[in-house]
């Protein structure tokens, strides 16, 4: 199997889905964002230029056009570039797209895909670093996809395109260069199936998106330095959420850490922690610990940015803390 970057695997999946789905269009398309790996998407741009509509900076209209185009039979991908800009058009996402199927009693489907890059990037400061997973999860009616590996990006993308539901697909600029052996054509990966990225018996780390490789790094280090076996579970989609896999893992290990890049209060980790303590009561040997961004806007300067950054060290530290409980 060829080694591919996340960007390359996703690019191939874009091509595959364009091939299979003539109604798939992109308004606009900015895969890879500012990353050097944006260049890896050139084969897609070259081959499917006719599927890409250039667009003004008009997030409300674009998100709403996605809703209407999906209703009208297209499979539109609305690319808002950075998740931060989704705030501009969010009414159309959380209060329109999310409600269409429900408000019509199942009669009108709205299979739009909202695409954004999410996650904290160096030097991007307060306004461009917003992570919206939690806001979206708080809005029933949306599927939320957070692919953390090349194969997941490719396989989940295929499922997103095939999905009859509004789907928010958020990749991460810092994952674009991640490599993995990936088959030339990846099979669709069903939503709602967590991936056990690493098995372990001592503690479960539930991690999403950029926190996944950082959790794996922490696990590696903890195995080496502390002889601790960490199980890393990536839910891959928040909606639907594979609670069973998470719960089973925690039932096995008895301890849990949740690592996710949204802001702490009412963030993704709060929800997962709340569910774990609800479902795993009695087997839990320690409180569920969260590793998140703190409740602070992201500062620009490096020394202050380093304080808020979600690092493997912080994950390892949290693991050590939950292990310290007897």
């Amino acid at each position: 199997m060829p080694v591919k970057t996340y960007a390359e695997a996703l690019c191939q999946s874009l091509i595959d889905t364009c091939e299979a789905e003539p109604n798939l269009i992109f308004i606009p398309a900015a895969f890879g964002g500012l990353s050097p790996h944006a260049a890896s998407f050139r084969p897609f741009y070259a081959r499917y230029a006719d599927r890409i509509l250039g667009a003004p900076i008009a997030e409300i209209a674009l998100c709403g056009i996605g809703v209407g185009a999906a209703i009208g039979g297209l499979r539109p991908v609305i690319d808002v570039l950075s998740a931060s800009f989704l705030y501009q058009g969010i009414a159309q996402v959380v209060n329109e797209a999310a409600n269409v199927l429900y408000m019509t009693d199942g009669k009108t489907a709205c299979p739009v895909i909202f695409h954004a890059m999410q996650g904290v990037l160096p030097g991007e400061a307060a306004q461009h670093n917003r992570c919206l997973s939690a806001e979206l999860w708080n809005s029933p009616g949306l599927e939320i996809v957070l692919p953390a590996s090349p194969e997941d990006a490719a396989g989940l993308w295929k499922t997103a395109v095939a999905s009859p539901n509004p789907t928010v697909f958020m990749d991460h600029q810092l994952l674009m260069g991640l490599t993995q052996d990936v088959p030339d054509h990846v099979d669709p990966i069903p939503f709602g199936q967590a991936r056990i990225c690493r098995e372990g018996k001592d503690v479960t780390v539930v991690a999403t998106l950029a926190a996944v490789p950082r959790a794996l790094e922490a696990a590696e280090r903890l195995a080496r330095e502390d002889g601790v076996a960490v199980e890393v579970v990536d839910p891959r989609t928040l909606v639907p959420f594979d609670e069973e896999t998470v719960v089973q893992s925690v039932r096995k290990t008895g301890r849990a850490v949740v690592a996710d890049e949204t802001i702490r209060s009412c963030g993704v980790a709060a929800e997962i922690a709340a569910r774990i303590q609800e479902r795993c009561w009695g087997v839990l040997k320690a409180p569920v610990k969260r590793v998140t961004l703190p409740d602070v806007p992201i500062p620009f300067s490096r020394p202050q940015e380093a304080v808020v950054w979600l690092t493997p060290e912080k994950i390892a530290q949290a693991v050590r803390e939950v292990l310290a409980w007897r």
Partner: protein
Amino acid sequence: MERVHELLGRMLFMRRFEERVIELFEQEQFEGHYHVYNGQEATALGAMDAVPRDDYMYTTHRNHGHLLARGADPVALMAEILGKANGLVGGRGGSYHAAWPEGNVPVTSALVAGNIPQAAGTALAAKRRGTGQVVVCWFGDGAVEEGAFYETMNLSALWKLPVLYLCENNSVPARYRAMGQYPSSTHAAPALTEVVRPFGIESHAVDGTDYDAVHDLVRQLMERLHRGEGPFFIEARTSRWPGSYGVWPQLTGGRFQIGWVFDPASAPEVVREWTTESDPIVLLARRALERGAIDRQGLEALDREQSTAVDRVVEAALAAPDPRPEDTFRHVLR
């Protein structure tokens, strides 16, 4: 004669329908906010009679008249307003979100300007897929205050989308309805027709109380849309029904009396001026009477007929079954 007769009948049906909606609300048959279409009947009918059934329509919080004019089953609409299982959308939406997916009214947003980009998106889909369909998008004058409107105008013009933007300005004082300009306290433009012009969108004003004027204009623009022209913008001007002044609709002045057509002075003061100058039913009936196209007896019979028809609609809707609680979690996702 046939035509004006039929038309008056449809307008009276709408009026009686809305009166019953207000009464049903006051009888606590349903809860929640709602909006009635009184005074705009000629606009919806004039427009919808010119819009092929295959084309899409997007409506708003003030949708009853649009849906009736489009041909939706009145029982299903009333049942929706009452939150019944056989409502247009299964009681899920109520008055706010009444829609008619089977009749190409896919979904109804009750957020001001929420439907405008959606209409553009559906038009984009029709255009790219080559279905030949066009989209009619209703909204109120308030929507022209929202940024969503302008963003969508720009995109519609850039992409030459087949949409008829149908703005119902229901706040125009009677004497300004046919004129070029009027003052508005919440829009700086001298007339809403002006705001789309910089985008190169062709823009028309029409007296929304005049069925024929609306119908002719919409028919022409629909033909041109089907030929690939567009988008177009219409401002249909009507004057606010006094019962729609407050935050809740009110049967101000009581139910509409057909006698007001003949003797405007008999209308209660609170609705007298509006009835005389702005009620599309009165205006049309008076023209028909003048032309001899209908007489008082005919008009009264017509009104009784429509009132009875509406009574039957209400009965059927009230008798309809409630949605099942156990279905509450269906259709969050497919």
